[in-house]
């Protein structure tokens, strides 16, 4: 919340992008976009997915060439033909998905493919150089650690150092917090602040409103390829920004559950589950979810959430304990049995697991239905019924698509998720397991998905919501459990849940310390 650190309004910005145009199949990603970046500021570029913010920065960083428009840096016109030219001019980008060599050390990664790396250098000198770079920018990293040994936050720091070492005056961070834990995000924003104070310009591409407020000096909001607003961050609040992003009012605020929950639909009794490395991922945990209830599972990734989702949907075996849905034992069920018992599953990785990018909307729609009539007839898939089903689903889930024959990968992320959520909600007459259902979605799609979860709940199903987004968990859940190292570290009713208590438990702290329940900040 650094309010008084605003840079003085300089007459000529460091970076001037004017009238940038960039097209892709079917979309105009940037449409006459202008952007100014000042020296020594953290500039947030806010917008929904597909608003064109990454494209604009790819243009600035020399990865895309615009069809029209000019870029000036410190008054000089630039036409980058490659990212290396851009970095030569001081523009460096850190991508959402890191481009590091897993098996090499941090020092090696920082020096890899860099003109200033000496041709022959001893391992010790390399480490020394790296330490010097770390000191220079005030970012600490173990030069000898191999990338795979580092946490995502540390890996990101290596990426940032890599770019800074090459002389970046303008550092672009593409959705930097999407891979970070909340604490790592706080650390990152300290770094960006420090860099800005040292006179560098940091661009923060994001669709998270709270990050804009917390970390930026100025914000440019984009919608459908155009700039819709330029503001000083101090003059904005989250609601204003959200409205600018989607151009309408949010509805997420009023979602309280109606009526009291019904009978227990999901009963989990002392289950123990092993992960892929055969280590215990869940240790004798028990809980229940009742009809008309959303149980939120909070926790930092890797504390057993994936295994929990998998074991409830038949994708992973139980070691001990039992799982029952509406009284029916599903301890040894496979996915087919789970589906037919009314269990739907929104997996964390939609194109990796829930959808098939190369297959049509038809084929994706019937994934849960192809074994049952009317789509199944004998050994055949009834084509007409499949198409009808897909059209129905597309309509019901508000998927925007020219037709149902195109491959799913041609849809935007939001539309893909709508299709997936719609399909699984149909199945989930008893239980819906939703893992990070709004991760990476823009505000509009996020709203649609959340509304769908509430609809499923109100239709009398039990919903298990696993999310790293604590705000989302607090917003939607009737009850909340916290998973830490495969155990339930705490369980709360929504009314008595406090952010910091939960945050503490997520990090492995004890409940007593936060039990007092003084809420530091109001949500929303």
């Amino acid at each position, binding site marked *: 919340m650094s309010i008084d650190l605003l840079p003085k309004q300089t007459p000529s910005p460091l970076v001037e992008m004017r*009238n940038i145009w960039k097209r892709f199949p079917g979309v105009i990603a940037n449409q006459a976009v202008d952007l100014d970046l000042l020296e020594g500021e953290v500039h947030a570029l806010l917008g929904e997915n597909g608003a064109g913010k990454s494209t604009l920065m790819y243009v600035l960083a020399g990865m895309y060439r615009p*069809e029209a428009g000019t870029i000036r840096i410190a008054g000089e016109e630039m*036409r980058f033909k490659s990212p290396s030219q851009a970095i030569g001019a001081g523009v460096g980008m850190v991508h959402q998905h890191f481009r590091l060599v897993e098996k090499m050390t941090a020092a090696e990664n920082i020096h890899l493919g860099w003109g200033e790396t000496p041709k022959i250098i001893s391992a010790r000198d390399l480490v020394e150089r790296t330490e010097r770079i770390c000191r220079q920018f005030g970012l600490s990293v173990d030069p000898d650690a191999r990338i795979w040994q580092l946490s995502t936050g540390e890996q990101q720091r290596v990426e940032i150092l890599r770019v800074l070492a090459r002389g970046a005056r303008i550092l672009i961070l593409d959705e930097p917090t999407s891979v970070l834990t909340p604490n790592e995000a706080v650390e990152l924003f300290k770094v960006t602040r420090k860099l800005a104070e040292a006179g560098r310009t940091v661009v923060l591409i994001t669709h998270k409103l709270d990050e804009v407020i917390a970390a930026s000096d100025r914000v440019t909001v984009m919608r459908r390829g155009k700039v819709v607003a330029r503001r000083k961050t101090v003059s904005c609040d989250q609601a204003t920004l959200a409205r600018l992003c989607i151009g309408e009012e949010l509805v997420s605020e009023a979602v309280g559950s109606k009526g009291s929950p019904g009978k227990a639909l999901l009963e989990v009794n002392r289950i123990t589950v092993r992960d892929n490395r055969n280590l215990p991922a869940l240790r004798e945990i028990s809980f229940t979810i009742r009809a008309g209830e959303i149980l939120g599972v909070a926790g930092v990734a890797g504390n057993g959430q994936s295994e929990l989702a998998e074991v409830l949907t038949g994708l992973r075996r139980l070691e001990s304990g039992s799982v029952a849905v509406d009284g029916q034992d599903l301890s040894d069920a496979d996915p087919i049995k789970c589906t037919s018992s009314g269990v739907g599953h929104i997996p964390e990785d939609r194109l990796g697991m829930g959808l098939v990018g190369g297959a049509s909307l038809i084929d994706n729609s019937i994934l849960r239905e192809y074994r049952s009539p009317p789509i199944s007839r004998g050994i055949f898939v009834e084509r007409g019924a499949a198409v009808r089903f897909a059209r129905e689903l597309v309509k019901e889930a508000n998927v925007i698509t020219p037709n149902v024959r*195109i491959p799913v990968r*041609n849809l935007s992320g939001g539309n893909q998720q709508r299709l997936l959520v719609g399909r699984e909600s149909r199945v989930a007459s008893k239980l819906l397991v939703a893992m990070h259902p709004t991760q990476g979605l823009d505000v509009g799609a996020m709203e649609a998905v959340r509304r769908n979860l509430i609809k499923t709940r109100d239709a009398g199903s039990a919903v298990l919501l696993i999310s790293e987004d604590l705000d989302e968990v607090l917003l939607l859940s009737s009850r909340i459990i916290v998973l830490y190292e495969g155990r339930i570290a705490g369980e709360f009713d929504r009314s008595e849940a406090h952010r910091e208590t939960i945050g503490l438990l997520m990090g492995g702290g004890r409940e007593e310390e936060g039990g007092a329940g003084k809420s530091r900040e109001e949500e929303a």
Partner: protein
Amino acid sequence: MKRSDRTTAGKRSFRLMRRAETKPLYEVICRIVSVLLALLVAGVVIKLIGMSPILMLQKALKSTLGSSYGFEQALVLATPLILCGLSVAVGLRMNIWNIGAEGQLFMGAWAATWVGLFVPGPTALILPLMFIAGALAGALWILIPALARAFLNVNEIITTLLLNFVAILFVNYFAIGPWRDSGVGILLATKRVPAELPTFGNSYVHYGILIAAAIALVLAFAIQRTKWGYEIRIIGRNRRAGRFAGMPVNRNILLVMLISGAIAGVAGMSELAGNVHRLSGTISNQYGYQGIIVAALSSGSPLVVLPVGFLLAILLNAGIVLQAQGISVNTMLAINGVILLFAAVGWVASQYRLVVTRDQPGDEMEEGGEGISMDEEGEGGSGRE
């Protein structure tokens, strides 16, 4: 964008954009056009080496499509190419590369020969037995790679490829060893197998082509219309999605590989009973490997394998004829390569469309633009390192 930004109005540029969807007819047209373009390039090459392209094309067409003998020969050659193409194509649907069709073909031919030489009975009974034996032998030959792939995730490319050499040596052993015909004038081959696939009238064309066509139709139908085919389509594109939906992923990998092997085995049986009638180490003219080309050019679609296999047969036969006209083997190979390359590019091209874009005129001053004039200085374009 290269030089002047001043004359922005109406400056055009062309770019390729990926299509959201491609109509099948359009794909076919693209492929045909690309082959015609390839022939044009081939014509230029022939011209450059001092021959008449028109004359060569006439000869090539006359010797293949233009004469009944040539047409029959093309169909005879197309039969194993199509069968091996189908064998590889069905694997491709599951993202599996069966490089071992060659070996499976040899084993299919071997098993068919064994039935034909040593099982007594009427032809009407022996032929189906040979068919079954060929299919079984082909499937058996891929069984170990298939099991390794399905359950241990061992890369099938290496395992299937290496087994080819084993199969060829195995057949060679029988052809010049125990089963060798010691009759006069027979070089390193077995006795003639009495049971033969019927031919069309007096021609050389045997019923193997019907078997190939039937398998193509059945495969296409099964993949497009059945629940099993649906599973194949899903698993082939995203294995984890298959698991997610509870599909028997490993079993389907195994099954598809066995089918792939069986079809290649049938290719061996068809060659033996329809074309050569004696088992030898030269029963296959690289058909298993040519099948990979056919399958890749067909993008794994069984129905497309039929015309592509036929086209390749014509190319190969025309090549032989043109060599007799004095075009060197290497030139011929180059021309064949060009045609295949164009056919492949044609398919990729059909996925894109060419669009004309203009720089947007008159937009320089958008809301926040504050009237900064854009071309004050940098026209020289030298503003970068």
